[in-house]
């Protein structure tokens, strides 16, 4: 078939390889900066069935990098505009669209029809959901992510390789990692990273070359320097995901996606036992509260005093207003002390509650 002759003539691909491409089913999540180049090259290559998940519509500011769309597509559902353009490029393949948000309720149903998953999303909650679903269904996941002028590519969950959680066990707290819409991005960067993702998909399908499993490829467009970082599979992490399923959303996503990440009101804890309070104010800040269950560790000393902090109790941190305690929560999370919370309204909430109960 003349359309694929430039693949078929290669010894490494041949008709047998092109047949594998035609038989493959690939799901691309996100039809944005990364999704557009991924989709273009997978469709051109002749992947038999391609799914596209995106609930967003085309915005004018997308057109600086999302090269599948027309100016006339502004306001249209991305998956609809993408499918129209892609079928013009290659009408011989099947393109399935999912104009919906990927959530724990639909992810399994959508994933199960595909062999390979491509992550082109722009937020952590979806990235962790995709990762965990890929582990549960045991499907390879081709990951790409970008920040301003830098990008990352790797293949997760491939033939016993590591997953995203082996790199970053839990999602970062909200606001600590901004996304493209907030901070901007060099338009051609997702083009470079997305084409590299499409390349990984094709290598996996064809069984040629070395897919980037266990290797995080990092590229800087300003310097053209790349670094490839080895990642090991963390068996306990994988086992944890398999065991708990997709319920992580309740304990991770909803908190870091809310406006008050890891913040907790005094009313929901005052009656609990097994709580360790930490006062992270300076030692001279008033009023002091004297209780046996309060540790006094000023914020700058926190990382040096980790051994004082119980890993079994629920940790409630407070300061004056809630700002330093939120920072303290972030620091402890990084130390894998995950059951910790920032007290809403700080020390004043504490004193108010104490005055009520005594």
């Amino acid at each position, binding site marked *: 078939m003349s359309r694929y002759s430039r693949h078929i003539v290669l010894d490494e691909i041949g008709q047998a390889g092109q047949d594998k491409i035609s038989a493959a089913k690939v799901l691309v999540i996100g039809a944005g900066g*990364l999704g557009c180049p991924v989709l273009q090259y997978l469709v051109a290559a002749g992947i038999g069935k391609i799914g596209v998940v995106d609930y967003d519509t085309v915005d004018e500011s997308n057109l600086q990098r999302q090269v599948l769309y027309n100016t006339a597509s502004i306001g249209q559902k991305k998956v609809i505009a993408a499918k129209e353009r892609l079928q013009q490029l290659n009408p011989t393949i099947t393109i399935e669209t999912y104009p919906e948000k990927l959530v724990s309720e639909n992810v399994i149903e959508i994933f199960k029809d595909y062999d390979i998953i491509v992550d082109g999303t722009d937020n952590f909650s979806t990235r962790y959901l995709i990762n965990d679903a890929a582990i549960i269904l045991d499907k390879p996941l081709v990951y790409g992510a970008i920040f301003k002028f830098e990008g990352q590519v790797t293949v997760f969950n491939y033939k016993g390789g590591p997953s995203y959680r082996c790199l970053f066990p839990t999602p970062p707290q909200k606001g600590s990692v901004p996304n493209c819409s907030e901070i901007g991005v060099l338009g051609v960067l997702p083009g470079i990273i997305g084409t590299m993702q499409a390349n990984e998909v094709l290598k996996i399908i064809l069984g040629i070359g070395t897919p980037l499993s266990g290797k995080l490829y990092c590229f800087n467009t300003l310097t053209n320097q790349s670094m490839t970082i*080895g990642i090991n599979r963390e068996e306990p992490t994988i086992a944890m995901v398999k065991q708990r399923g997709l319920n992580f959303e309740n304990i991770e996503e909803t908190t870091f996606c809310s406006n008050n990440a890891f913040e907790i009101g005094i009313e929901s804890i005052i009656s609990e036992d097994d709580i360790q309070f930490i006062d992270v104010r300076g030692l001279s800040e008033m009023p002091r509260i004297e209780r046996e269950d309060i540790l006094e560790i000023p914020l700058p000393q926190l990382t040096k005093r980790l051994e004082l902090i119980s890993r079994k109790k629920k940790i409630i941190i407070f300061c004056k207003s809630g700002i330093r305690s939120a920072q303290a929560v972030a620091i402890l999370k990084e130390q894998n002390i995950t059951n910790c919370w920032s007290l809403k309204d700080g020390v004043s909430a504490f004193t108010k509650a104490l005055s009520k109960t005594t």
Partner: protein
Amino acid sequence: MHIEIKYFGMLAEVTGCSSEILELSVTPVSGLKEFLFKKHPGLQQKDFRIAQNQELVSEETMLTGQEIAILPPFAGG
């Protein structure tokens, strides 16, 4: 010993440099982190992983004086 630290993504903005050479006595990764938190307090609010000679390491790994990469998660797509 000399170690070269490379900061990726937003961490280069937090530290104000994309790489720096540090003079450090032999220390586990946790010691490096303490050192970095003092030098660049903004790092305390950031998630990151550390790689030595292009391999991710854990807190206990001893640094042997070569290339260190500090990697934050990237959200964008």
